[in-house]
């Protein structure tokens, strides 16, 4: 486990600690990571849970809730989750890479290709890596059944940005 956010996630013997997630399928493990509620809901809404434990393993680049809020307005996010499932699946594939790759594997590879077909550069090293020159891993290397989860701070892919600060939805 590495990255600045790891200390702020369930640890030690707390429910949801990394060791407790080790044997779990990815879609179950995601439910224990409190910064991934949007990503986790997106996986369920898209019907792609099974894609997260493909026989040959998968790498999950999971953007935080803050990253989703910065990327999409609340309305757009609702629309993705409720109505536009094709677009949602496309978005999720931008965050999945075939093979269960550790942070070190990613850095060593230098580039990876997502299930959406997009080539993503990986730079940096040590505790974090930078993806596509825009997303940093903030807590990497959750090992779950057949997959690695790396939490990142930016949504990947080419959908337009509609979120951000200032647009406080009224109650």
């Amino acid at each position, binding site marked *: 486990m590495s990255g600045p956010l790891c200390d702020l996630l369930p640890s030690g013997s707390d429910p949801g600690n990394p060791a407790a997630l080790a044997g779990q399928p990815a879609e179950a493990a995601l439910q224990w990571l409190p910064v991934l509620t949007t990503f986790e809901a997106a996986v369920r809404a898209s019907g792609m849970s099974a894609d997260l434990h493909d026989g040959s393993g998968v790498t999950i680049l999971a953007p935080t809730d803050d990253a989703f809020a910065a990327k999409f307005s609340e309305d757009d996010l609702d629309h993705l989750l409720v109505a536009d499932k094709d677009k949602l699946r496309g978005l999720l594939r931008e965050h999945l890479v075939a093979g269960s790759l550790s942070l070190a594997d990613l850095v060593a590879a230098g580039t990876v290709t997502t299930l959406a077909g997009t080539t993503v550069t990986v730079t940096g090293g040590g505790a974090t890596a930078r993806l596509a020159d825009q997303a940093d891993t903030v807590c990497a290397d959750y090992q779950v059944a057949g997959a690695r989860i790396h939490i990142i701070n930016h949504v990947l892919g080419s959908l337009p940005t509609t979120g951000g600060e200032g647009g*406080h939805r009224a109650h």
Partner: protein
Amino acid sequence: MRDRRTTAILSALLAASLAAFAGPVPAQADPTEPNQVQGLTVAQGDGYATLAWTPVDGATDYQIERTPVAADDTATGPAVITGVWRPNRQINNSSPTFADAGFNPGARFQWRVRARFGTTAEAYSAPVAGTTRAPWGDPAVPGENLRTQWETTLAAQYTSDVNEYAYTAAVDELSDRVRVTEIGRTALGRPINMFVIGYPTPPATPAAVAATSPLMVNCNVHGNEPGDREACLIMARQLAFSNDPRTLDLLSHTTVLIVPTINGDGRAANTRGNSTGQDLNRDYSLIRQPETFALVRMLRDYRPVAGYDGHEFGNSSAGDLPMLPPRHQNVAQSIFDESQHMIEGHMYSQGAKDGWWPCPYGCNGGGNVGLSEETILRNTLGLKNVVNSLLELRSSGGTTRPDEGNTANNRRRKTFSALWTFQQFLDYHRANLKEITSARADAITFQVSNTGRIVFRGSRPIPAYPSPHPGEAPPPLDAPRDGQVLDQAPCAYKLTEEQYNGERTDGPAGQRTTVAQRLAAHGHKVVKVADGYVVPLAQPERGLIPLLLDGQAVEKLVDAERVYPTVTGERSGQLVVSGVTCLRDATVTGPVRVRAGGTLIATGSSITGPVDAGGAAGVFLTDTAVEGPVRVAQSSGPVVIVDATVTGPVDVSGNRGDAPLVAANTVTGPLSCGGNTQAPDNLGLSNSVEGPKSGQCASL
């Protein structure tokens, strides 16, 4: 404005109660350093610890430091700045307090506070230590030992739908005080449950609950704002099993209604809207969706007199707890005033005592929020004469709670701040029930009188609280714009058969409801006439009806025909009503006779002579004086006699429509009722009757 008048008194009481505070002995620092905080105390609440200290002259702000400690008070982890107190937190800067929260309840800590002058930090106070209150309920006592998923996972997970239903069923089964009732289903078929809680048992029927002037908390309308819902589930357990005198006293005097999850589909999907993408808090007037329809029907049947509606708010510089009353200008003044009093007169004062930071919605740089849409529950409730407030939980820690990068800390602070608010709401209701019910009575008599203009959109102003403000800015003025005011209110609206019973295209396919069903769910009185349906404004939700039925309304159901008064001014001789006759501010010298199938609507009028209606389609007699007997018998439709002054007897019998409304009247003769298909009701507004009250009206 009850709120502002009582503030000084409350502040004085607050100062006195703090002076008499008998909690832990204040920490003494010796020797004293310059500008060092003195007199620090800590008091434990549910999920928070209130720190209080003596202010340092000239301090800009204060930092609150928390350190985990063992039983012997040796540190077991690093000290962390968990809070920043700023003068805009509370209405009395002379007694600063801070509700530290976010920690795992039950842990032991040491706290210190230091003043800052600009960026210069002064010396820390001497420390105080304390063990925080463990999650409520003895782990060895059945019922008390129930815990939600959110609690058992230490806030790593929210309580799922499945876990909510199991927990709810267990509370129901183990507590005589609780009945869980399903008020409807979501679009996807999830049950929408409501806790009905009373002591020793809750009243058996909705009408019996209504008679206890119940209060309601709506916990989770936006599925991606789950903090209030967790508080509601914990509070339900406290109310169900706590035997402390306060809880028993509260539950002995009223019934608590808690709707934990109206938007179960959105909660499960983590979306703001429901499964169709509809924002349910833009649908409480139109009730296109099954969720809002269910809640509105529940309001009709259970009639809460006060409410809170829980949300979370993305503005990171707002207070802990932004609140707002129903502001729509069609809401009766008394409801607005009493709601403001609940917020400013109670929550602001109690917040200053316990260290939470309620503030007007918007609060700091809030933007264009908190307006007059009647589709929002806050306003819908106000238009239904319910004293109520919006509650927001600031989503992020913001600059005043810098230790919420840990999501669990953030979730706990939000949920326990909501729990504090809802418990305060119960206390407010208990202590102010007379004022609340009197505001409601004033509102109902105002609404049935159908006086004053109609505003389609536009709010009452929320003036800034006198300095020091809790927060910097109230929400925008939001005055009615051109074209959003109707100076001459119609007497009624008339709908065609197609408008009333025709199929709708709004709402989820397969679950759509007609206008007839929606008006019935609201409890609006409708008269069937030969060529359509008439909805008089002389009824308790007068302010809401034009927003649904007028062509000028911003979000209407239909563009119905305005029906204007037919009789105004002076009139002599017998008045015979066969069609729809509407009296407004009329003086009729002579008897009024409503023929079979006729409809009489009279407001603000005076009738010298008897009123006799036999077999009418509908009779509405409000804010009107009648000399002579009033007899309303065998009507096929609604009967509304409210705030009438009758010299002589009143007889309401054999009517076949919904329960006749006989409320707030002054009658010099007897009031007798019998043989009505549904017994007459007074909505809790008793009649002043000199003669005997008998039959179905004996207790009205």
